[in-house]
């Protein structure tokens, strides 16, 4: 899991964080301020400082928070001066907002707070709906409230253009004071408590938070418009309460509880995505009337409370429908406060010793947990800031006692009042400074060596002094809202470890400590010696057990090739033969009558609901688009067979260890990762192994996107947009044990949503009901309506997935929804819209449920930014060892364009992201071998980034390149010189006229249709993914649903065309243009296959579009990267005749690009 942090405040008001991966409290960087309260969310933390003002700390990120400001310049034509600012009196302002109702002069647009800065000056937006406008960016219309066009017509009387400017949030990683209101009437009085939550209520806008605060006068305030792009929110608004509030707690979802002076709790009702503030209050009585509630904390569906007698209570039966719950249960322990964090995990501060406790054993099934466990992590602060633990210790104890004495009757809310002595800002620093000054002198006097050594924190040598202090760290407040602890997370918080903790998950350590340990070497050496001693002179002896043929037999089910197509029970046998050379060969026999399969090219687990089945591809079967499908009785059985078959395949092909840097990587629609080695014997463009004979080997892990580079850098992106970097291992996942590398395999996870649809039909009596016509689809169905999918019957995609959320309405479906998530249509198989009209007789809404998969694979998480797309520079072999960093560009899940710095073979993860500003969110990016960066924006147009170079990794500016007419691009791939793009209708386009002096090219030229994904290699090879999903029906219908069916006819292409002839001996080599796609609808002898890996044949410098397709494995392939595949044998002139004799065209010569074609750089 990505590490996240627990926030806490000690009695001195110092804020500390404790990482889930770490075991030391780290002081908050901005240590100037002292805090009373903190409330953390994932990316930010809100707090109330000693000056009773609210502060927010937004975590630093490589991606800046930036907002676009816009203003429109409006002009009207008049016969005298042409277009000018002299508007009619009835017209809008010359400078206005988009509606024209608000005046908006450019210099009148101000920054919302001191925490923002302008990124650039105002400039004109020349992009109009994906099409570039003429210089000046004007759009024309007949009159103002009208539709605008790019072109000036005879009747264009008015015109306008859009000015944009960006502002950037600059106060990241520091406590930013929330500006107080200008209006003194509105100014809330000093704050006493604050709570952040509500991030699960809705995703719109991105990163929306509910920030609630309580003032000293007992009023409740809500901060409006807090979101990722507006981290400070806009204003406070008062929420009326029936009593004086003391403390407030807002859960991640729709729970909001408030404690009152009188000891009751208030529960907010009616919080939902349309009304995050809720609508009404209801009261919950305390567990016992004599001891009122002092403190509450809410999670998604739990509420914990502390009463005045310090007893801890758990509220039973709380959920969205019944936010009040049913009854109190007393829990063990006495606490000052408790806090519920993510995943309903609970922390508490004991009232005995003010130590921090973690509630162990909180799971979804046992929300109240098992025991309190004390957190004994040490504080970095004690060591580095003020090393005098003794000084602090005594001060702390003294302080603590005093507080405890006075705080006997009042809640923790008041407790802080007792030590609010220091005024705002400067004086707390003074007090603190005094202490820390006093401290070191003490320590240095008594323990001269202590201070020196304590800075070397990791030395395990004696000197336990910091630890003894830690046991007595006195905490005042804790917030787990940003701390993701899951049931299986192992935390290192509970033991004091004195250094020497092997950091296992570091990429630089390619070997685990166990393998480098001296004793391991010794043992291995002794074993080797023993073998030598006992065997060296006796090799001629006969072996007691002859190496026999090993046969694994078993019973599987086989999908019959011919009618009747059904599952048949078969016996299978895998025979492993060991040849004389020690090479193993394996044959898999499938006996139904007599049937035999050889030369397996890939094994693909195919999970369907009913069967644990997998597909087996052979060259012949690949051509036929009809793999052998086998099913095992249990998942375990299947994974055994898969592992074994995989092992045998790899052994017989002598594929071992990590894939070579030149390997081709791909991902299936199930997220399985496959790798194919380029054949070293068959180098050169036209002697390439036909696609159908490529051997695909599965690598552990679960990804949606994988991109590779010939220097061995491989990045992947999961379904949940987590970025992963390849560690160099292999195996993992279902390939445990022997098929797996011993190191570099780590836990990997992915989260995705399962969607089902609720369908309703309108009738005149009762309106929309779940009673459909007999001909209608199921009232609960999948997207197509063919399968019945109810909430209860729906299972996660496979046994590896587990549900991690409940069903929720998905509002983010294309086309939009009404406030309740419904989409309307006149009848079922129709297009849906988000509002109801008279003619709409049916409606549907999408329900989603998150499921999570935890597997293992050779991948390490790249933290900090979630990604949508990634591209690594393909390098031609000449660039090897240039030592330059590897250019890597990516698109974040929010559409930001990013450029990774510091990526190299040794550090494939790189160091940090550099943000590249854009005017709109982007969806796809690709960087070519000569640093040409192309990207696709959300409006479907392409952009070219100029002047990108190793010394200037983020380039200069974007050039807008309009998409092909009436098409919206969705993906782009750039090879050495050529640029291919893919539109949303599956058409593949080639960019004509790209030259070094004119890198943007001239026009798009259509290459093929039915393409799902395209990958252009470093030598301009194009590969792709045919669209298609599994048409290999495992029980037809099961798989058809995975991909939309396309109505256009499949492309009729000859099965595979060899490209060659011509070009030989002419002195210049042909640049090896390789274009691979994943194609849709590939005709096989048995079926149509969707998601097929294809290579563009005949791609040459003179004909960069290529001629035809060579079909490989499929379907169900989703993503492919051949960008590492740069094998190219240098062919000297003397070798050329030889290849000529063979009837083969000369393989492409290495060396510099002497091609007459486009050459960059």
């Amino acid at each position, binding site marked *: 899991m990505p590490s996240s942090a627990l926030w806490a405040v000690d009695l001195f008001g110092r804020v500390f964080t404790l990482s889930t991966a770490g075991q030391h409290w780290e002081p908050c960087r901005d240590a100037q301020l002292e805090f009373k309260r903190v409330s953390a969310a994932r990316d930010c933390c809100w707090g109330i400082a000693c000056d009773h003002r609210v502060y927010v700390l937004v975590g630093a990120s490589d991606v800046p928070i930036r907002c676009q400001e816009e203003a429109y310049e409006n002009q009207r034509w008049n016969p005298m001066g042409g277009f000018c600012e002299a508007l009619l009196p009835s017209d809008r302002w010359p400078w206005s907002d988009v509606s024209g109702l608000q005046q908006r002069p450019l210099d009148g647009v101000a920054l919302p707070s001191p925490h923002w800065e302008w990124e650039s000056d105002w400039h004109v937006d020349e992009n109009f709906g994906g099409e570039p406008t003429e210089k000046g960016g004007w759009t024309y219309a007949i009159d103002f409230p009208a539709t605008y066009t790019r072109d000036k017509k005879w009747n264009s009387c008015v015109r306008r253009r859009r000015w944009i400017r960006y502002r950037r949030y600059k106060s990241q990683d520091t406590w930013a004071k929330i500006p107080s209101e200008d209006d003194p009437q509105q100014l809330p009085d000093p704050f006493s408590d604050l709570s952040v939550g509500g991030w699960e209520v809705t995703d719109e806008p991105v990163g929306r938070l509910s920030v609630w605060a309580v003032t000293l006068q007992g009023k409740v305030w809500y901060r409006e418009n807090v979101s990722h792009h507006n981290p400070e929110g806009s204003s406070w608004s008062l929420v009326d309460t029936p009593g004086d509030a003391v403390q407030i707690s807002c859960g991640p979802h729709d729970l909001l509880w408030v404690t009152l002076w009188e000891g009751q709790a208030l529960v907010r009702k009616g919080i939902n995505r349309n009304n995050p503030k809720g609508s009404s209050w209801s009261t919950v009585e305390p567990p016992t009337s004599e001891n009122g509630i002092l403190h509450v904390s809410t999670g998604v569906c739990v509420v914990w409370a502390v009463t005045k007698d310090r007893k801890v209570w758990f509220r039973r039966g709380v959920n969205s429908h019944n936010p009040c719950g049913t009854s109190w249960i007393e829990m063990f322990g006495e606490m000052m406060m408790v806090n519920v964090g993510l995943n309903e995990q609970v922390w508490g501060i004991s009232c005995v010793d003010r130590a921090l406790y973690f509630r162990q054993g909180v799971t979804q099934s046992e929300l109240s947990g098992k025991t309190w466990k004390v957190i004994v992590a040490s504080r970095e602060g004690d060591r580095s800031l003020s090393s005098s633990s003794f000084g602090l210790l005594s001060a702390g104890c003294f302080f603590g006692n005093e507080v405890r004495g006075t705080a006997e009757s009042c809640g923790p809310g008041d407790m802080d009042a007792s030590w609010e002595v220091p005024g705002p800002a400067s004086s707390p620093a003074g007090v603190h400074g005094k202490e820390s000054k006093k401290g070191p002198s003490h320590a240095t006097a008594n323990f001269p060596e202590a201070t020196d050594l304590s800075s070397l924190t990791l030395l395990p040598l004696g000197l336990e002094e910091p630890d003894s202090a830690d046991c007595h760290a006195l905490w005042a407040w804790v917030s787990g809202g940003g701390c993701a602890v899951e049931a299986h997370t192992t935390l290192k918080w509970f033991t004091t470890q004195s250094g020497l903790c092997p950091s296992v998950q570091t990429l630089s350590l390619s070997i685990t400590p166990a393998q480098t340990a001296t004793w391991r070497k010794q043992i*291995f050496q*002794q074993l*080797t010696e023993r073998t030598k001693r006992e065997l060296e002179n006796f090799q001629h*002896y006969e072996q007691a*057990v002859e190496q026999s043929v090993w046969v*694994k037999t078993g019973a599987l089910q086989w999908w019959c090739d011919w009618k009747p197509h059904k599952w048949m029970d078969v016996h299978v046998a895998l025979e492993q033969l060991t040849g004389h050379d020690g090479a193993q060969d394996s044959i898999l026999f499938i006996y139904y009558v007599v049937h035999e399969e050889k030369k397996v090219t890939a094994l693909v687990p195919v999970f369907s609901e009913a069967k644990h089945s997998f597909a087996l591809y052979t060259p012949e079967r690949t051509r036929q688009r009809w793999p052998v499908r086998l099913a095992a009785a249990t998942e375990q059985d299947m994974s055994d067979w898969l592992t074994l078959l995989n092992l045998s395949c790899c052994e017989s092909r002598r594929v071992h260890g990590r894939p070579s840097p030149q390997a081709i990587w791909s991902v299936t629609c199930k997220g399985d990762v496959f790798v194919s080695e380029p054949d070293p014997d068959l180098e050169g463009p036209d002697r390439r192994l036909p696609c159908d004979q490529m051997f695909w080997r599965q690598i552990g892990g679960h990804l949606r996107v994988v991109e590779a580079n010939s220097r061995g850098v491989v990045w992947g992106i999961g379904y949940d947009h987590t970025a992963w970097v390849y560690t160099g291992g292999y195996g993992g996942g279902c390939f445990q*044990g022997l098929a797996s590398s*011993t190191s570099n395999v780590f836990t990997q996870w992915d989260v995705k949503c399962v969607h089902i649809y609720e369908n309703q039909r309108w009738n005149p009596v009762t309106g929309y009901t779940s009673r459909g016509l007999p001909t209608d689809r199921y009232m609960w169905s999948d997207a197509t309506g063919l399968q019945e999918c109810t909430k209860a019957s729906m299972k996660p995609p496979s046994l590896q997935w587990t549900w991690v959320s409940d069903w929720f309405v998905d509002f983010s479906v294309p086309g939009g929804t009404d406030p309740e998530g419904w989409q309307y249509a006149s009848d079922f198989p129709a297009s849906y819209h988000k509002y109801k009209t008279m003619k709409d007789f049916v409606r549907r809404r999408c329900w989603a449920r998150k499921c999570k998969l935890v597997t293992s694979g050779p991948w390490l998480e790249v933290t900090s930014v979630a990604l949508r797309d990634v591209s690594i520079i393909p390098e031609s072999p000449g660039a090897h060892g240039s030592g330059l960093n590897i250019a890597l560009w990516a698109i974040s899940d929010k559409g930001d364009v990013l450029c990774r710095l510091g990526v190299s073979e040794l550090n494939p993860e790189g160091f940090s992201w550099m943000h590249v500003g854009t005017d709109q969110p982007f969806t796809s990016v690709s960087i070519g071998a000569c640093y040409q960066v192309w990207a696709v924006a959300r409006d479907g147009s392409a952009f070219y980034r100029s002047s990108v170079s190793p010394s200037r990794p983020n380039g200069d500016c974007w050039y807008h390149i309009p998409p092909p007419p009436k098409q919206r691009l969705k993906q782009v791939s750039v090879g050495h010189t050529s640029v291919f793009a893919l539109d949303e209708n599956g058409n593949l386009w080639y960019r004509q006229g790209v030259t070094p002096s004119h890198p943007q090219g001239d026009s798009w030229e259509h290459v093929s249709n039915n393409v799902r994904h395209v990958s252009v290699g470093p030598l301009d090879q194009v590969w792709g993914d045919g669209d298609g999903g599994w048409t290999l029906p495992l029980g037809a219908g099961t798989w058809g649903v995975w991909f939309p069916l396309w109505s256009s006819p499949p492309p009729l292409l000859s099965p595979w065309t060899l490209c060659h002839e011509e070009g030989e001996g002419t002195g210049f080599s042909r640049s090896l243009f390789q274009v691979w796609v994943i194609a849709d609808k590939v005709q096989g002898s048995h079926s149509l296959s969707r998601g097929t890996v294809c290579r563009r044949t005949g791609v040459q410098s003179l004909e960069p579009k290529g001629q035809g397709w060579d079909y490989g494995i499929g379907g169900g392939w989703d993503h492919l990267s051949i960008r590492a595949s740069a094998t190219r044998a240098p062919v000297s002139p003397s070798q050329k005749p030889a290849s000529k004799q063979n009837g083969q065209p000369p393989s492409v010569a290495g060396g510099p690009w002497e091609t007459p074609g486009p050459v960059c750089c």
Partner: protein
Amino acid sequence: MTDDKDVLRDVWFGRIPTCFTLYQDEITEREAEPYYLLLPRVSYLTLVTDKVKKHFQKVMRQEDISEIWFEYEGTPLKWHYPIGLLFDLLASSSALPWNITVHFKSFPEKDLLHCPSKDVIEAHFMSCVKEADALKHKSQVINEMQKKDHKQLWMGLQNDRFDQFWAINRKLMEYPAEENGFRYIPFRIYQTTTERPFIQKLFRPVSTDGQLHTLGDLLKEVCPSAVAPEVPNTVLPVEAKIEPTFEPSRIAGGRKASLAVKCWASQGPSRVFIARKKFHWFRTKLKQQVFRAGVQKFQL
């Protein structure tokens, strides 16, 4: 160490060169040539000596043949001890090849178990595996396995197929990530000199204060005589399957040892033998008392 393929392979492919000679009193029709064979350390005598049996039967009359048994320097060899254990226990100090005498007559009823068929060996082997798993996982893993998995385990051993065996055995050697190890370490320490043929105790992999136990800890506890007060080298005279711990710890008489091993008995018949030369050192140390310890899988 189940993921350390190098060590696993070396253990599995350990071989002992052996010379089989027919006992002089056996009646033969013509002179019996000695028979030379490489015996897998991890297997059983009666499982791998079909060739020996066939070889000597050729020179004997049918009526003189009864159950075959083996003897080394007067000691009948228990077939239910793995070959490697027998060798290290009885003959590790002698020169190679290992000279074993083959008998067909006067079966030593009080010393040896009968071995009428390979089913008996299989039953014995499986019961050892089960006993070990009872200690390691409360028998959960072995019970969840199917019959065919058990069969594969056995066939892997019988056919000397490393992959076949370990494909199943891997599961027996795993433990949940949240636990520090097995429940108990299955082990047996065999000795030649005492009246107790082996020592066996319950031993947890982790001490009460959370430290991982090492092989040294185990020996200190169950067999203190095996731990010399001052071992010049850091290696222990113990045969054991080993597993790494992540922290070096103190073993062998308080000396900081670079060798930290967690000891657990082999699941199935695979063992690592460490430092045979230490035996010689011990022999001199203990005068006549030649001490050899072997941590072994469970025998019945």
